[in-house]
């Protein structure tokens, strides 16, 4: 657990691709630009002094206030954060990466795109599928981006804050 020391190393190596960091949080995180995530992750895995060979989890968080009053007071604009939790078996240290993308790419309904890291860690394969299924992030370059927990003909992404449960699904009442 030494997040701060990684930031300088990554900034030196990747410059503008490292868009920010939060070192005050209990688990410090580093923000990476979407176009650089595969490059940064490959480096994190292959650099012997870092050796992040184990990917714990890939997930995303939807930031959107449904309540307009709360939205007006909010410190952030609506967006999605894709979160990567990494660990090194050799050095026993961990790291949190974040990729911040808009909720929709362009017009509403078009999923935002983040390059897939399934080629870096095989764990990410299923985790990205789950993330696509439940939160609606399109992982470009993923070998098999299908829904994994919901049925294949399910509409919408349940973990979005503005998701509404369908009224019926194949004759089953939804709500």
């Amino acid at each position, binding site marked *: 657990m030494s997040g701060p020391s990684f930031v300088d190393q990554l900034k030196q190596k990747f410059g503008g691709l490292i868009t920010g960091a939060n070192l005050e949080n209990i*688990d410090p995180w580093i923000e990476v630009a979407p176009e650089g995530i595969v490059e940064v992750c490959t480096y994190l895995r292959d650099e012997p002094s870092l050796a992040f060979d184990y990917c714990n989890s890939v997930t995303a968080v939807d930031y959107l206030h449904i309540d307009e009053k709360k939205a007006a007071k909010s410190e952030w604009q609506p967006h999605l954060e894709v979160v990567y939790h990494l660990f090194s078996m050799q050095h026993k240290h961990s790291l*949190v990466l974040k990729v911040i993308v808009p909720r929709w790419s362009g017009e509403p309904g078009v999923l935002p795109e983040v390059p897939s890291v399934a080629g870096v860690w*095989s764990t990410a394969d299923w985790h990205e599928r*789950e993330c696509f299924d439940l939160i609606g992030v399109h992982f470009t370059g993923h070998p098999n981006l299908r829904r*994994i927990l919901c049925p294949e003909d399910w509409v919408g992404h349940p973990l979005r804050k503005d998701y509404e449960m369908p009224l019926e699904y194949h004759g089953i009442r939804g709500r």
Partner: protein
Amino acid sequence: MATVDDPRTIEFDVRTDEMLVNMGPQHPSTHGVLRLVLRTDGEVVSEITPHIGYLHRCAEKIGENLTPRQWIPYTDRMDYLAAMNMNLGWALTVEKLLKYGPPEKGRHLRVIISELGRIASHLVGMGAYGLDLGTFSPFLYAFREREKILDLFEEACGARLTYSYLTVGGATADLPPGWLQKCEAFLDELEPIVDEYHALLTTNAIFIKRTAGIGVMPQEMAIDFGTSGPVLRGSGVDHDLRRDGEETYTAMYDGYAFEVIVQKNGHYPKDHDYPAVPTEAVLGDCWHRFYVRMLELVQSIDLVRQAIDRYSRSEGSYGEPMKLNQKLPKGEVYLETEAPRGQMGFYIVSNGEAIPWRVRARSSSFCNLSVAPELCRSCLIADVPAIVGSLDIVMGEIDR
């Protein structure tokens, strides 16, 4: 030429068509509602595709609408064979965010309960694996002992499957009077019985034939696919969160004597008399995954004994549960704990309200199952239950 011994050697003048076979979702050896689509060529499986989600309840969405203590019953229903360990994982994650933990007595209580949970879970893992391979008796033996653990749990918290016992800040109640004696009596009873399990399965010639050298997973693959628990250690990776995890979790085991069960330099830790590794077994195969579970079972007996000793010597309270609607500090935390099936992780994002903004459960079985297609490549149909069973998955945890 095809030989009787090895059907994988295919005679060239025999042409078979590829066939898609559905195994599950209600197949007895898929451990719940898992559907595997097998692409087979005669007896040889060329590809398996797991289809999951039959138990999906979107527990994470529910977690966004409940306070942390209200969500504890939902963690019970994830790995329902080790519900105590699920409670513990979630409680520790919230404690990491709140930056407080249970007092000394609560800490030892948690070790007793969670290690008993591990014993119960590994017993089912062992029994059900016997079922997968076509022998019924070990299952009955395992459930006979598991029943006694459930009785102990019932006495402590009133429930037999979904406990909601360990909670943020400690536990919901202290252990009742006389409980420790009953627990010790049970451990004394269980310890010699483990030899029976070894005789039934571990050293059984048929069992060895069905598992040794089957589904071999190299170290690199185990790490690459994010497997954890006995599946990871069965491949010889020396990693156990009880020793290597974050401070929040390892503090619980502070001062406890135990060795990580993993084969190092060709040897398993030698603190008990275990049956020898058969010559046919290869590190990372089904037999080793099973064996690690069996050794962990014995180790947990020892850990519970140590914890009982410490618990009975510690004074004061077992912990003050957090208030039901207490506001959470702003921030986000992720914590993984060593549940019986592997590393169970919880992730909380809090925006300063009593209800978390986002809750996520990282399931160990989910990652462990994701390696199955890789392990089952060009194996025999009969080996599919052996391989999937050796991963010891629980669908409630995968589908959440």
